[in-house]
């Protein structure tokens, strides 16, 4: 009897221990009262900015002013000659950045739409942060496209509208598909960012005073949380979650068609669509990990919302995507190689052994070798430092990949008399400008937008329970919707 009691006590102790363990590990099993979570999020957002914050804003702001403002002004007034583009590398870093930023933007949709559709519960606290990445990234992509144009002030000609010239855009051109797709994607991802934000804005409205109150009152558009409002919102979000996935796939596929539809050696590849998508997710997930780690490290109360389990989950995705990317890259490579076209062979050789061979090699190392070497270990995966370093590396690697695809591949064509290297010039400033603007957007948004969708977290916490199956305590999730 005593023994039984003892064992029961031990069991109870074990139970408690298990529960503790679960609470510590899983946000969903560590519920806090809603009000407290609200306060935590509000505090993170409204706390008085430190000097470090202002310093960051000033540094980023000046990079944006010089890189995007002044350099772009020069680019427009003096022409693209101050950039490094030439014959035959007519496209340079601008297009690299476009592809890169569109790639980054894919992670946001992936996390908040695909994971929502598949009810991956770990997504809950960071859907917002990821969605912001979509919108902010797309803005940079758009900027990069307009920078790249020789006469950017005439870019409105690419929009279909009736005019006295009796001319419409050319819908045969992958670029005009691109423009439509990016516009669609930018609009829909912004809307998709906004819809789940409304309840949180309403929360912020209720919790703030002063100018913030006005600000959030306007943004919350009068949301109260009635049954009807929730129903409309839920339906809309559901539609969005499903519909935005093909849009997202189409965007990067079309971006890949800009290259794949061309007659150039190396570009003309049928695998480019999926290959670009997996590449986009690769860099996007990496960027998401970095952003999460930074948000967790710099903002108040975020250690509660963002935990090792989230990095763990992202790490798993990164590992899988890295494998997928390797598979697609190899697929593209072997088919091109096997085809034996002399120009394609020259191009592959140029990639590997040319002056930028180091880039090719490091691309393979950081995109494949490092994720595979590091991310199999769940302890390492859960460490924000490790995963964000891997994330940064993957992003560098993916940027290299795009660099190899755009200017480096352009160096080689069917007219060897024109082969020439591309040496970036003012593009570097403009690229840094877009990067700084991307970060600056986050830095500013961190003070204006509730980064954690509290209602979604609470919804998740309500749905999670610890249940006992026989002797084991496991997590169960009830489907609320």
């Amino acid at each position, binding site marked *: 009897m005593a023994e039984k009691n003892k064992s029961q006590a031990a069991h109870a102790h074990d139970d408690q221990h298990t529960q503790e363990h679960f609470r510590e590990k899983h946000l969903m099993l560590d519920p806090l009262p809603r009000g407290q979570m609200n306060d935590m999020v509000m505090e993170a957002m409204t706390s008085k900015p430190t000097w470090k914050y202002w310093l960051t804003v000033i540094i980023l702001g000046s990079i944006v002013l010089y890189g995007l403002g002044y350099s772009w002004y020069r680019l427009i007034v003096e022409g693209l000659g101050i950039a490094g583009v030439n014959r035959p590398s007519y496209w340079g870093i601008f297009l690299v950045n476009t592809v890169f930023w569109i790639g980054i933007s894919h992670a946001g949709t992936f996390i908040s739409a695909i994971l929502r559709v598949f009810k991956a519960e770990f997504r809950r606290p960071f859907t917002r942060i990821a969605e912001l990445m979509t919108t902010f990234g797309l803005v940079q992509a758009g900027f990069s496209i307009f920078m790249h144009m020789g006469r950017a002030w005439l870019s409105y000609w690419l929009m279909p509208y009736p005019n*006295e*010239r*009796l*001319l419409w855009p050319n819908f045969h051109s992958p670029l005009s598909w691109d423009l439509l797709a990016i516009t669609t994607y930018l609009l829909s991802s912004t809307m998709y960012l906004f819809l789940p934000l409304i309840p949180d804005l309403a929360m912020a409205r209720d919790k703030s005073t002063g100018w913030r109150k006005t600000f959030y009152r306007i943004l919350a558009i009068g949301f109260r949380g009635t049954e009807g409002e929730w129903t409309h919102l839920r339906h809309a979000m559901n539609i969005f979650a499903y519909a935005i996935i093909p849009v997202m796939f189409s965007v990067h596929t079309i971006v890949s068609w800009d290259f794949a539809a061309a007659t150039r050696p190396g570009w003309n590849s049928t695998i480019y669509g999926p290959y670009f998508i997996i590449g986009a997710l690769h860099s996007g997930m990496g960027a998401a990990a970095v952003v999460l780690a930074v948000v967790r490290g710099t903002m108040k109360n975020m250690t509660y919302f963002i935990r090792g389990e989230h990095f763990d989950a992202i790490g798993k995705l990164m590992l899988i995507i890295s494998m997928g990317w390797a598979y697609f890259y190899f697929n593209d490579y072997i088919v091109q190689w096997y085809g034996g076209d002399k120009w394609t062979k020259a191009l592959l050789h140029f990639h590997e052994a040319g002056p930028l061979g180091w880039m090719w090699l490091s691309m393979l190392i950081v995109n494949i070798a490092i994720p595979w070497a590091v991310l199999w270990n769940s302890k390492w995966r859960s460490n924000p430092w490790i995963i964000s370093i891997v994330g940064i590396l993957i992003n560098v690697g993916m940027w290299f990949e795009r660099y190899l695809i755009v200017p480096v591949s352009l160096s080689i064509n069917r007219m060897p008399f024109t082969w020439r290297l591309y040496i970036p010039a003012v593009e570097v400033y403009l690229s840094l400008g877009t990067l700084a603007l991307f970060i600056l957007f986050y830095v500013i948004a961190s003070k204006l937008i509730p980064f954690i969708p509290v209602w979604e977290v609470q919804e998740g916490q309500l749905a999670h329970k610890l249940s006992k199956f026989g002797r084991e305590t496991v997590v169960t999730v009830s489907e609320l919707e």
Partner: protein
Amino acid sequence: MIKRLFDWLKQPLGLIAVGIVFLAVFSVAVYGLSLTQKAPDQPIQFPHNKHVGFGIQCLYCHPGASKGPNAGLPSQAKCWACHNQIARTQTSELLAPLKNAVESGTPIQWVPVAQVPDFVQFNHRAHIAAGKNCEDCHGDMTKVTVAENPQVFNMGFCLDCHVKTAGEDKVLLNKLADCGTCHY
């Protein structure tokens, strides 16, 4: 300090002041814009209506129209050939610039009125040969003094007429509506 300024601006008087400043800036901008849209003045207020009224053919002064791309402006020798014989030329104040120009041997600096952008390669001869009349594009010169452009010579204006001219003739339409007909 700034707060007080804002407070002052929020009250009705402040709002009115803001409104006035805004209106002033806006109208200056609009005026500036309208200035850029205006052609400079002609050196001589040339009365087209009178000259056409005397029965002078367009091609007399602008003979290039039937010969080549530009209609051309008459040389002052041509003006003077007639005006020399008109007594009033010697005294008229309006004609003083002409007299001065001829006597000093400096060309008159006309300001072209009807013009197409320089990326449009326009050829008068082809249009005259196709049976177009001057007034189809330049308007009725018996009604204007200093020439004005009745039309905005934009692409729609040109293309519309080209398409109408081609009518059912598809070969001609191909030719007339080809981008390379005007732009090269």
